[in-house]
C-alpha cells in the first residue's frame, strides 16, 4: 500500500505538489491525471525518492520511505517519463546493470532478460546500444527493465508516450496482466482513453493540489453519461446529459450537424481543464 500524508514539494517559491494526501491500496491500478504542470511527474519523483519532500511523508506498507530504505525501494520499480538509461550500453547490459543494482542472481537476470526481451519483441536487437534504438524500442526496454526485478509497486510516468497504437495496446494488456497478479500500479498519462481503460480509480490534480479521487465511471457519471457534440460557427461544443432520453430530446431541438455519443474520461478532463482556463 502507498500512502502520502501532507506531501508537499516546493522549488523556491513555486509549489509543485501541495499537501497531497493519497492512499493507494495493494493491487490497485491508480491513475494520476491533470494538465501539464499539475504536479504528476513531481509526485512520481517523490515516490521514487529522486526528489525529497519539503514537507510530509510517504509510507510504503506503513513504513516511511526514504533514500536510506533499500528494503522499501526493493519493492518499487519506476518507468520515468524520460529515457533514463546509459546511452552507450546495449540492452543486455542495461538489464544486467538493473539486475545487479537489485542484487539479483546472475542466472536469474539472464533468464528473465531473455523472457522479457522476447515478450516485447526486442530479442533480435539485444546487442544494439540504447543510442541506436527508436523511441518506442527505448520505451519497451524501460518496461522490461522495470519488470526484471519483480516489483510489488510499479510507478509509471507516461509509459506509452512515443509508442505506436499496436505497441500501446500490447502494453495495456501487459499492465492488466500484471495488475491481475496483485501488482500495485500508479500511472500518470495524457491519454485519457488509457486511464479509463486501465485504472480502478483516478485522482485529478491541478496546480499541485488534489482535486478529486473517483472511479473513471464515477467521474463520467457526475458530468453526464451522454454527450451531444454540436457544430457551431464558433467551433464544436459539447453538452452533457445524465439520461439518453434527455440527450435525444436536446438533439432533436438542434439544427445543423450534431452527434450523440457516450461521455468519456477525456470529456471530463477537457471540461475541467477548460473551466480552469476560464478561471485564469
Amino acid at each position, binding site marked *: 500500500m502507498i500512502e502520502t500524508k501532507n506531501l508537499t514539494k516546493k522549488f523556491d517559491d513555486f509549489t509543485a505538489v501541495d499537501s497531497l494526501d493519497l492512499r493507494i491500496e495493494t493491487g490497485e491500478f491508480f491513475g494520476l491525471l491533470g494538465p501539464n504542470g499539475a504536479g504528476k511527474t513531481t509526485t512520481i519523483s517523490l515516490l521514487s525518492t529522486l526528489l525529497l519532500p519539503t514537507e510530509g511523508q510517504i509510507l510504503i506498507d506503513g513504513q516511511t520511505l526514504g533514500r536510506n530504505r533499500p528494503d522499501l525501494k526493493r519493492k518499487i520499480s519506476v518507468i520515468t517519463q524520460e529515457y533514463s538509461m546509459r*546511452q552507450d550500453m546495449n540492452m543486455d547490459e542495461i538489464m544486467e546493470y538493473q539486475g545487479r543494482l537489485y542484487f539479483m542472481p546472475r542466472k536469474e537476470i539472464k533468464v528473465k532478460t531473455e523472457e522479457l526481451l522476447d515478450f516485447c519483441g526486442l530479442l533480435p536487437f539485444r546487442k544494439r546500444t540504447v543510442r541506436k534504438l527508436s523511441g518506442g524500442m527505448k520505451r519497451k526496454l524501460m518496461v522490461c527493465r522495470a519488470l526484471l526485478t519483480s516489483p510489488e509497486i510499479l510507478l509509471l510516468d507516461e509509459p506509452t508516450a512515443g509508442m505506436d497504437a499496436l505497441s500501446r495496446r500490447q502494453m495495456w494488456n501487459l499492465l492488466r496482466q500484471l495488475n491481475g497478479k496483485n501488482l500495485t500500479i500508479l500511472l500518470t498519462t495524457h491519454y485519457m482513453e488509457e486511464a479509463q481503460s486501465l485504472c480502478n480509480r483516478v485522482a485529478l490534480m491541478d496546480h499541485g493540489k488534489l482535486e478529486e479521487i473517483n472511479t473513471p465511471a464515477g467521474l463520467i457519471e457526475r458530468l453526464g453519461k451522454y454527450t451531444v457534440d454540436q457544430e457551431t460557427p464558433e467551433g464544436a461544443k459539447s453538452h452533457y446529459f445524465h439520461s439518453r432520453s434527455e440527450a435525444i430530446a436536446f438533439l432533436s431541438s438542434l439544427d445543423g450537424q450534431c452527434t450523440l455519443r457516450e461521455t468519456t474520461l477525456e470529456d471530463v478532463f477537457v471540461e475541467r481543464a477548460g473551466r480552469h482556463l476560464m478561471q485564469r
Partner: protein
Amino acid sequence: MGILTILWEKWVEFRRDFYKITLAAMIAPLMYLIVFGMGIQTSSHGEPYLNFLIPGVVSLTTMNGSFNAIAQNLNVQRLYEKAFDQVMISPTPLWQFIAGQIIGGSLRGLYAGGIILLLTMPIETGLVFNGWSFLVMFLNGAVFSAIGVVVSFLAKNHADVPRFSNYIIMPMAFLCNTFFSTEKIPGFLGNFVAALPLSQTSHLIRTIASSGAVNYISILILTAYLVAFSVAASWFIYKKKNL
C-alpha cells in the same frame, strides 16, 4: 554487493572505450615528458630534471585519469542521460554507489599512471617505483574521484565540470609540486599549494622514487582529504532535496 555492481559498470565502460581511454591517458603526459624533460634538458639539484619531472607527471596523470573518469561521466549520467535515476531508485545503498565510484575512479587513475610508468621504463633514471608508490597513486586517485563525485553533484549544466577542471584541476596540475617544487612559491600561497592533495602525492611519489622513504604525514593528509570529500558526496546523495 553494490560496490561490485558499480565496478562492473566501470569495467563495461572501460572495455568498450579501451583505446580511447588509453590514448587519452598517454598524450598530455607524454608531451610534458618530451618537451620539459627531454626537449629542454636541464638539471635540478645536480640530477637530470627528468628525475624530478617523472614522479610529478605520474601524479598529475593519476589525478586527471581519476577526476575525468568520474566527474564528466557522472555529470552526463545525472543531467543528460538521467541514468543516475536508475541508481537512486534502486535498493543499492547509496554509500556503496559512492564507494564504487571512488574505487573505480582510483583504478582508472592507477591505470593512467601505470601507462606513464611503463612508457618511461626504457629511460634509465634510477627511480624506484614500488608497492608504496602504487598505494599513493591509488590514494591520490581516490581523493580526486571523490572530488569528481562532489563536482558532478554540484554541476548545474554540462559546462560546469570542464569549467571546474579549467579553474581548479589544471592550475593544480602545473603548480602542485609537479613541474617545480612548491618551495619556490613564496609565503602563504606556497604553504597553501603545498597542502593541496596533488602536492602531497607528488612529494610522496618523488621521495619514494629517490630514497624509498615514506612520509606518513602526507598519507594521513591524503586520507583526510578522501574522508572529507567522501562525506560531502554522501551528504549530497542522501540529503540534497533536488539532486
